[in-house]
């Protein structure tokens, strides 16, 4: 069995999860604490990747990120080179597809924070940034961990979107789920079974981790 696709999946999951958390924290905070018109519209937009078929997402991303698409054009004039069929491209796609998985747990734990804490911090003269980093973040570490784990797991299993925009390039964009698909197509059922088993074990361990975090939060 070729382990490279598993390593690429893991690398993709780590990179996109870290970037996603950086993006999801202010986003979730804005959706929970922000008072701006159309907040529920923004909220729905963030959840959209959850319900869209990966083929729809993949097709639009291919158009947007291709050399003729808006994002693809901007990228090639800024960074040179193409965005589709690259590791950067699938990272971006995985982030978009996993966005709701990162934002939802954060939102839930932000909502649980006692409002009086925030008001006190504000009264005592803390800036919004200080409130975010010194009150909100330390009080939602459980949610942060849940976000990270879910985004990681969802990206490990990412298939449809990457099938559309990855180009299955060995060593670069051929992730584990694509490799399994190709093993089955080429009748390498044994390799397919082994790699699938590894993904099942990883996914199960991830869910065990989430449940442990949840029960600990409930007891705390």
């Amino acid at each position, binding site marked *: 069995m070729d382990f490279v696709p598993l390593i690429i999946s893991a690398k993709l999951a780590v990179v996109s999860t870290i970037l996603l958390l950086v993006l999801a924290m202010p986003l979730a905070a804005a959706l929970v604490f922000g008072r701006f018109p159309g907040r529920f519209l923004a909220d729905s937009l963030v959840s959209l990747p959850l319900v869209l078929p990966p083929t729809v997402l993949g097709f639009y991303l*291919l158009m947007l990120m291709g*050399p003729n698409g808006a994002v693809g054009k901007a990228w090639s004039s800024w960074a040179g080179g193409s965005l589709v*069929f690259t590791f950067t491209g699938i990272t971006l796609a995985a982030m978009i597809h996993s966005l709701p998985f990162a934002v939802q747990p954060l939102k839930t734990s932000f909502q649980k924070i006692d409002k009086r804490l925030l008001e006190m911090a504000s009264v005592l003269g803390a800036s919004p940034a200080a409130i975010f980093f010194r009150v909100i973040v330390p009080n939602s570490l459980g949610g942060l961990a849940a976000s990270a784990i879910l985004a990681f797991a969802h990206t490990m299993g990412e298939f449809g979107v990457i*099938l559309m925009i990855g*180009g*299955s390039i060995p060593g670069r964009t*051929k992730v584990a789920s694509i490799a399994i698909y*190709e093993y*089955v*197509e080429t009748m390498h059922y044994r390799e397919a079974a082994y790699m699938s088993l590894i993904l099942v074990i990883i996914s199960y361990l991830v869910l065990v981790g989430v449940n442990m975090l949840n029960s600990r939060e409930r007891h705390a």
Partner: protein
Amino acid sequence: MNRHFTGIFAVLLLLFGSVVKPVSASAGKELTVAVAANFAVAMEHISALFTEETGLPVRLTVSSTGRLYTQIKNRAPYDLFYAADSSRPDLLFTEKLCAEPNRYATGEIVLWSSSEEICSLATWQEVVTSSRVKKIAIANPDTAPYGNVARETLEKERLYQAVESKLVYGSNVGQSFQYAAMGVVDAAFVASSSARSEEGKAGCSWQVQEAPKVEQKACMTLYGRNVESAKRFLEFTLSDRIADIREKFGYGR
């Protein structure tokens, strides 16, 4: 509790009744044909002609050869299998799931592009080695027969080393064409049938004379229920009756 069970049972009965009935009623008549994606459009025309002549309805299932093969190994309810290669039907024959396969068409690969700038180049070798061509799509050589032929030809022409870093792999020859049609790659190795389609006429193509033809075989599943009409359909697709359709979609016999 008991009443609940009766209710659930009644609902299930209704559901199954409505699903099972029409299938079992038509099982003795309707032919189910599994066809590889590259031949799907031609097959739609062929089966329409067949139904017109014989009155026998045909239902098509379109997928990749590899996936259809796996399904047939697990006794998917197909009467006939039209593959994009010869190896999968041959395998099913040795595995005693299929009668002896017959060649029903030969296909060929062409290089196709939608970019006007690239269309001014003269040969496919010039295109793949041109510095203007950054990305070339090819069907996955390990899973798709047309991709395999493309890779073999690149190797034979000693171009593979130079071109490998430009290659992007579609899961089948259709996706390879789609990438080029959307302009996300500069050129693609596709089936000549794609180049002859409506979409294909919007671009330009180069013949790849060095490439061997792709032999496409069909076989009748040995567990299929509609033996008589399956035989009729197979004979029909091997006959000269469909020569025009084959030709129109860029296939040889």
